[in-house]
């Protein structure tokens, strides 16, 4: 009995020490992690603010800090999710709206179920002369997809094909053409585009 208690105590000491060290490392790396995550988000927003046809910015000044972004929040919710459908696709809070020269640009963070979980994308819609069209999309979180297969959704080529299909084919994505062997991942992205369109229709934007 005494020996069990002793070994248990020794194990506890080891776990306590490692727990403490982990806490220290977590606190040290936290600001860097937040910065990396925020930079990734900002880059994605910058990317979808560019016209997918001409590769030029749709607005004159793209956001560069958290404050800039906070100014253009359009819809937000405390629960982190603004809109959800039966297929478990989601629109995350916050949604952004940029306005300039009669143009309105809506930027949503959306997700659809891929092969291993949520595939999250940032997507932009352009409203010009009362016509709303999808402008661009950037997949930002595909960490649960298979490296070399589904994870190839991050490639520029795959993005171009998705945008092409969404624009010319009324948001019907030809999944097999975008990525061979990773239909389910592309399907997740297609579902997330669908919910973005649904959401904008619900809000009366399109």
């Amino acid at each position, binding site marked *: 009995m005494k020996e069990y208690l002793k070994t248990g105590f020794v*194990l506890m000491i080891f776990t306590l020490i*490692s727990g403490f*060290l*982990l806490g220290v*490392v977590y606190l040290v790396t936290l600001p860097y992690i937040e910065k990396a995550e925020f930079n*990734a988000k900002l880059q994605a927003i910058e990317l979808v603010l560019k016209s997918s046809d001409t590769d030029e910015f749709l607005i004159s000044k793209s956001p560069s800090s958290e404050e800039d972004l906070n100014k253009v929040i359009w819809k937000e919710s405390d629960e982190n999710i603004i809109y959800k459908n039966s297929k478990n696709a989601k629109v995350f809070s916050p949604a952004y709206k940029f306005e300039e020269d009669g143009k309105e640009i809506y930027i949503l963070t959306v997700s659809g179920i891929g092969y291993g979980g949520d595939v999250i994308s940032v997507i932009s819609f352009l409203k010009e002369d009362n016509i709303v069209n999808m402008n661009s999309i950037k997949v930002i979180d595909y*960490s649960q997809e298979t490296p070399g*297969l589904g994870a190839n959704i991050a490639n520029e080529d795959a993005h171009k094909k998705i945008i092409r299909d969404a624009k010319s084919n009324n948001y019907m994505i030809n999944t097999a053409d975008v990525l061979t062997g990773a239909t389910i991942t592309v399907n997740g992205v297609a579902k997330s585009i669908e919910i973005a369109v649904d959401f904008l229709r619900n809000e009366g934007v399109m």
Partner: protein
Amino acid sequence: MSKMATFKNGLITNNPVFVQVLGMCPALATTTNSTNALGMGLASTSVLIMSNLMISLIKNLVPTKIRIPVYIVVIASFVTMIDLLMHGFTYELWKTLGLFIPLIVVNCMIMGRAEAFASKNTPFDSIIDALGTGLGFTGALVLLGSVRELFGNGSIFGFEIWGEALNMHAFILPPGAFITLGLLLAMFNYIGIRKEKKAKEGAKK
């Protein structure tokens, strides 16, 4: 064993992937291209070096009965630290490797070196052993990744070798991992057997 022999033992003689066939999960899953393979190999190597060092330092404090749980705690802590550091500083690589970084905890190569070497040897020797084994693992992964990327995508480390001319997509898919690994294993075994034969013939003369 001399320091050099310890190092060479992990790197070549008892290469974790091609001789001991350890750590197959990351070796098959993350080697879809050379960059991922290198990242995975280096992450595993750094965990291995730190855990080997730590375990050889605390080996006299750990009761024999609970040595495995203690080793797991040590390894898991270092893996979590690596995960956090990679998340903060190498964001893109962290994204692509995804799930496989936490899975380094259950890489039997790391547990094996802790149990078989670090728990019986001095800290310095353990570091040498970890370096040898880790680099052996990294080298094997990069070789596997390069072959798969070359035949599946026509490039190595992203540099085009023959472009789209001779691409067999199957090499990037899971079956390609098994086929490539099998062929490489056969090649290294063949070289090993031939060396042994030559050594024997030399001894007879």
